[in-house]
């Protein structure tokens, strides 16, 4: 049985099946007796709960630090605005203005202020919710609507899910900061790809990113169709292993549309995921 393995399920393109793979993988592992946690880091649009249907318990608000200026102490020198790379604080005609949703919370302005006129206050960016879905310990983050900065919330979700022997992280799509935040610290990354030119283009970008981070990884091809070798050929050319090919099956889509796990309704699916879990453990070297 796996001891403390964190598996991130990622993709370049959106909609390739990250949630399908991660939720079904979590259920498979739970049924095999693993202590498993499912951590949904796709905080802009978390959807794992639609399939795992957890009973949510604790909820915790997450804040980022933003500057609060004491206008009595401020000498309007403008140093805070000069140091800020994000235009979150600026001094115009003797008035210091802050733009809180531009702030990345680095604290630079506070350090630079020569008269200690800047203090930190918290700005809420979202919540972390915890619960249980059967034997699976469930965590997800929900970013406030309109909020642009998700990495601090993703970090909070990941640190909340710090227990459990097998941790499955549902990663947002793409290759940018939220993705890097969600997969950093993972022992292994599963890239879910669909065998289309668009899907493989974005898979290429995601493979570049994960290689740069030096995290062991492999590909799962979703909606695989007999005779379509695009994904297999692509992975061979990139020297990346394909751990599983999940067949394109209308019943899987139907189950998904009802918020059901393909694992429990489509015959043969369970075996795919048992094999996949074994492959991941082997590849991750445990």
């Amino acid at each position, binding site marked *: 049985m796996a001891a403390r393995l964190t598996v991130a399920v990622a993709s370049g393109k959106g909609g390739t099946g990250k949630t399908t793979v991660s939720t079904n993988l979590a259920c498979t592992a739970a049924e095999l007796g693993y202590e498993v946690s499912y951590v949904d880091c796709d905080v802009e649009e978390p959807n794992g709960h639609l399939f795992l249907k957890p009973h949510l318990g604790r909820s915790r608000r997450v804040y980022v630090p933003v500057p609060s200026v004491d206008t009595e102490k401020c000498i309007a020198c403008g140093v805070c605005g000069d140091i800020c790379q994000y*235009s979150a604080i600026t001094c*115009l005609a003797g008035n210091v203005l802050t733009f809180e949703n*531009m702030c990345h919370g680095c604290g630079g302005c506070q350090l630079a202020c020569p008269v200690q006129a800047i203090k930190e206050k918290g700005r809420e960016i979202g919540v972390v919710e915890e619960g249980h879905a059967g034997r699976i310990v469930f965590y997800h983050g929900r970013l406030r609507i309109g909020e642009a900065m998700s990495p601090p919330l993703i970090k909070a979700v990941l640190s909340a899910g710090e227990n459990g022997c097998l941790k499955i992280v549902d990663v947002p799509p793409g290759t940018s900061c939220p993705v890097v935040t969600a997969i950093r610290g993972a022992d292994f990354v599963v890239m879910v790809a669909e065998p289309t030119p668009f899907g493989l283009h974005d898979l290429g970008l995601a493979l570049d990113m994960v290689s740069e981070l030096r995290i062991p990884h492999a590909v799962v091809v979703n909606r695989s169709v007999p005779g379509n070798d695009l994904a297999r050929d692509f992975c061979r050319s990139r020297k990346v292993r394909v751990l599983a090919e999940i067949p394109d099956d209308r019943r899987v889509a139907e189950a998904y549309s009802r918020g059901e796990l393909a694992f429990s309704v489509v015959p043969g699916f369970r075996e795919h995921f048992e094999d996949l879990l074994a492959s991941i453990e082997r590849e991750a070297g445990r």
Partner: protein
Amino acid sequence: MKAAVTSSGQNLESHLDPRFGRCSWFIVADTETGEYRAVSNEQINSVQGAGIQAAEKVSRLGVEAVITGHCGPKAFRALKAAGIKVYTGGQGTVAEVLDKLKRGLLEEATSADVEGHWM
């Protein structure tokens, strides 16, 4: 009055650039003497905060008014903090809008007229 007009080019015959934060040039002109100069806008490619940085720039240039096509909420707030009058809805050449400003035909904006990143 010293005014900045967002411009697609470097002279008075250039067309007004409707963007404030990401305009190509600012034509900084004195409506009394007719003197002007073109100042490039380095913020055109900034990742974020172009409007705020453009407001900082025109404030440093010492203008009393800005004439542009549209102005988002952050840029508007920054321009107001700097005590700069904002005129949105500008159209035509830089010379034409400066003439309108001089003759009092432009109406000062009391709020942002678009959301940020409107284009």
